[in-house]
């Protein structure tokens, strides 16, 4: 320690002129606001920006220059023997000189920052959230990193030994490992985990460079070639150990199954309610979320690719619930492979296909899961899923927008799309013969204003189109025949419509006093029933959990919120309410069976079981049994 301090003091004294340079720069920066053209800006801002930029640039530049010369020059000129002829250890030589240089660089930064510190004080490195670690680390760590890297490269270049090949190979392997560690986090969109891995990699690089440099000097001593060999061996061994540790840690962060879930989100539910697409995090795994296609007995699961946007829906199911198809993982706009699984098998496995689709492509599966239709860039391609054989590719007319397709049967697709004529928008209803590839128009809804969305019922008999008039906030919903496009009637309730199993429509709307009006009406004929539920801000009507019984999340009193929301089963005929449970976080994040590129979607023939899944206060997925009224734990939840 004594020797380290002695060397450090000597090195600082030898380069003390740098401090004068820093003082000169600080004085110049203080007078900068008085220069012509700059005087129009706020003086404090000018000093802060100039100080910050100059300090960081100067710090990094000094670190680079000194890193390349402090040891390199002495080794080349045979001057390092001065230290090694004294009773000081090699590590003391390394530590003393590096710490001296870094102390000088940091002092130079502080001096240059003085004009800004005088005005801003500690606020320079703090934000509203506390210490601004990124800025602080930039001033402290960036110069150290530059110094160590410049030193390592300087030794490599000056020595010119065959160890250069290890360095090059090491750099390539490290770059590969860095990408392998970062890519999964980018795919998942786990920002905290990504920053932890990035930070770990920077720390690993610093440690490896420090150990390499120290060992190079301690073992190689005055012999440049041996310094290089010792540096390379120590640096890459350390890097390998650190990378292995980071890779193991990164792998552990990502490697957990549904049974380890704490918070669960369910994105899709198979039409028969047997399988769900669940996303969840696990204890200690930072913000990493895994996605699984999971049987609701929680004993079987198939891993799904993670998504940057974890709310994105991945899986599409066949109507019989036996087949699921999904896009594989990828970063950004990379094309993805399609994957599928036969959920009817006792032990379903994820199976890759050779089909590649763009991230924005839509796809739908036939009722029996045998065929797959992909809608991408104006073309509908139909495949035999098992054989991956292209049955037909149909180029759609270019003026179609918001296209949505659904299988009527294995040989016919129904197509709904918007097209514009002058200022008016229309909905085209057509059928595609998968054998001939012919597109036959069967109906049209003409002369609409701006279409917000359209939705088609499971039987493909009726559809609701939501439109908005120009300049008006309120949107209107109308019911149409889903084959001919003929108007059935306008719906005078603004809420999101749902079709019941028996074909009736449920419409809801919230009034200003917080009460909810729930209207049940047949498609045609009489029999309209209107219920007014008491004031319950935030109440929502969900799906049909038992015949003619819809789930209502019923928040009577906002003060109940910490206790969770209360769910009730609402009989649409009698208006009776039956308590499902309290202390619940809500229903599953169920999304309709979306197959269109934009806002067209379909209701499939979901069984009531689909709407019996809820998320409880602990974040667990639970299933409600209407017979017994019990909540059965499926997966997840904070233990």
């Amino acid at each position, binding site marked *: 320690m*004594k*020797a380290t*301090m*002695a*060397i450090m*003091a*000597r090195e600082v*004294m*030898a380069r003390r002129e740098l401090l004068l340079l820093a003082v000169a720069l600080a004085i110049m920066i203080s007078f900068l606001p008085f220069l012509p053209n700059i005087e129009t800006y706020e003086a404090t801002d000018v000093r802060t920006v100039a100080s910050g930029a100059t300090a960081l640039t100067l710090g990094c530049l000094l670190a680079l220059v000194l890193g390349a010369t402090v040891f390199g020059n002495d080794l080349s000129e*045979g*001057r*390092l*023997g*001065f230290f*090694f*002829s*004294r*009773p*000081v*250890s090699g590590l003391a030589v390394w530590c003393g000189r590096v710490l001296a240089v870094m102390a000088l660089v940091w002092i130079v930064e502080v001096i240059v920052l003085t004009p800004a510190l005088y005005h801003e004080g500690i606020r320079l490195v703090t934000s509203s959230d506390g210490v601004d670690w990124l800025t602080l680390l930039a001033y402290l760590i960036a110069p150290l990193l530059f110094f160590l890297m410049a030193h390592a490269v300087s030794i490599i270049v000056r020595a010119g030994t065959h160890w250069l090949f290890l360095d090059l190979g090491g750099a390539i392997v490290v770059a590969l490992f860095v990408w392998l560690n970062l890519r999964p986090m980018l795919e998942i969109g786990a920002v905290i985990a990504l920053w932890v891995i990035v930070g770990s990699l920077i720390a690993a690089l610093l440690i490896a460079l420090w150990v390499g440099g120290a060992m190079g000097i301690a*073992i190689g*001593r*005055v*012999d440049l070639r*041996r310094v290089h060999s010792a540096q390379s061996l120590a640096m890459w061994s350390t890097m390998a150990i650190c990378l292995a540790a980071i890779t193991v840690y990164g792998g552990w962060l990502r490697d957990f199954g549904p049974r380890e879930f704490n918070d669960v989100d369910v994105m899709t539910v198979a039409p028969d309610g047997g399988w769900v697409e669940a996303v969840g995090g696990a204890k200690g795994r930072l913000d990493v979320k895994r996605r699984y296609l999971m049987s609701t007995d929680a004993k079987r699961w198939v891993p799904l690719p993670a998504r940057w946007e974890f709310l994105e829906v991945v899986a599409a199911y066949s109507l019989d619930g036996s087949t699921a198809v999904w896009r594989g993982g990828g970063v950004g706009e990379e094309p993805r492979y399609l994957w599928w699984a036969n959920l009817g098998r006792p032990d379903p496995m994820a199976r890759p296909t050779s089909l590649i689709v763009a991230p924005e492509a839509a796809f739908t599966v036939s009722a029996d899961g045998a065929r797959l239709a992909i809608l991408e860039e104006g073309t509908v391609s139909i495949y035999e899923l098992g054989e991956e054989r292209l049955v037909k590719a149909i180029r759609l007319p270019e003026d179609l927008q918001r296209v949505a397709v659904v299988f009527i049967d294995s040989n016919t697709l129904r197509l709904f799309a918007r097209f514009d004529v002058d200022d008016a928008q229309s909905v085209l209803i057509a059928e595609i013969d998968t054998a001939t590839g012919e597109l036959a128009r069967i109906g049209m809804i003409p002369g609409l204003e701006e279409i917000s969305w359209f939705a088609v019922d499971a039987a493909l008999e009726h559809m609701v189109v939501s439109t908005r008039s120009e300049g008006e906030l309120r949107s209107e919903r109308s019911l149409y025949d889903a084959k001919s496009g003929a108007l059935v009637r306008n719906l005078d309730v603004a809420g999101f419509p749902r079709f019941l199993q028996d074909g009736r429509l449920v419409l809801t709307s919230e009034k200003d006093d917080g009460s909810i009006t729930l209207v049940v009406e047949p498609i045609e004929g009489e029999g309209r029933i209107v219920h007014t539920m008491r004031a319950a801000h935030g109440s929502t009507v969900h799906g049909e959990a038992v015949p003619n019984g819809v789930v209502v999340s019923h928040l009577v009193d906002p003060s109940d919120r910490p206790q969770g929301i209360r769910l009730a089963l609402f009989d649409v005929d009698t208006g009776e309410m039956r308590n499902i449970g309290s202390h619940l976080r809500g229903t599953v994040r169920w999304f309709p069976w979306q197959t269109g590129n934009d806002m067209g979607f379909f209701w499939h023939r979901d069984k009531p079981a689909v709407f019996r899944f809820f998320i409880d206060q602990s974040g667990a997925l639970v299933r409600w049994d209407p017979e017994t009224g019990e909540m059965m734990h499926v997966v997840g939840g904070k233990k």
Partner: protein
Amino acid sequence: MGVEPVVKLDGLTVRYGKLTAVDDLSLEVPKGGVFALLGRNGSGKSSTVRCLLGQQRPTSGRTRILGFDSWKKRRRAMERVGVVPENPDVPPDSTADRVEKFMARVTPFWRSANYFDRLESLGVPRKQRFARLSKGQQRQLALALALAGSPRLVVLDDPTLGLDAVARRKLYEELVGELADRGTTVFLTTHDLTGVEAIADQVGVLHGGSLLVDEPLDVLKARYCRVIWAATDTVPRERIDAGLQHLGVIGRGAAKGTNEAVVENFSEFGFDRFRQEASVDVLRVDSLSLEEIFIALCGAEPGGRS
């Protein structure tokens, strides 16, 4: 149990790739006295010194200074060792004063007064940067640094390089006068054979990485002689050659009316045998200077002996 030698090299071998710079070198330098390691350029002297000072790891073998392994225990070993390198390596931006401050903090037996007295007596400016000193002053400063730490061993790697004759003489006088009195051991390498002849107690000669000679200088000089005899036609050359074998002939020559031979194992007994067997008229026996011995040993290809 004998006294631990100050310097001990045991099977020292240094290789650079396929080149063997030092080959299985073993020697011991006892306490006190001056050991001179001689050799031509590239003979392995610098590698030997670097290994001895623990600055370079030998390919095989061991080096010890004052009983410490100089690679593994370099820091301990260097506590009582002064070093004057071939090229003075004091940081060029340092002044004599600033170097002293550093040395005082890292050298356990540092004597500032000794250091400053020496600089003053030699007229080395204390406030001038090392890079601006003359070559002679740089060497004097290096020597002052080496001696002010109360060393028990001083290692000088070609210390007279670049010094004029007066400075060389002065340096050697100091070494003999000051260090010998203190019982400090001196290990030096040099090409200044004339100068070192006056002060060396023991000499080692390296050639092609191998140690040809390691013995006290007076013994070496007694062994190496030039025998001169009158040229004759009556004695067959074979008889003369046979006689010279008793003296270990390593070279033959002829001048006007005389013949001569350089021998490496001169002894009274051998000389008598030579005279009896060769029956020649020996005119005189000249002792060789160290330089002549060195040329006789290293004058030709690696392996020596012309």
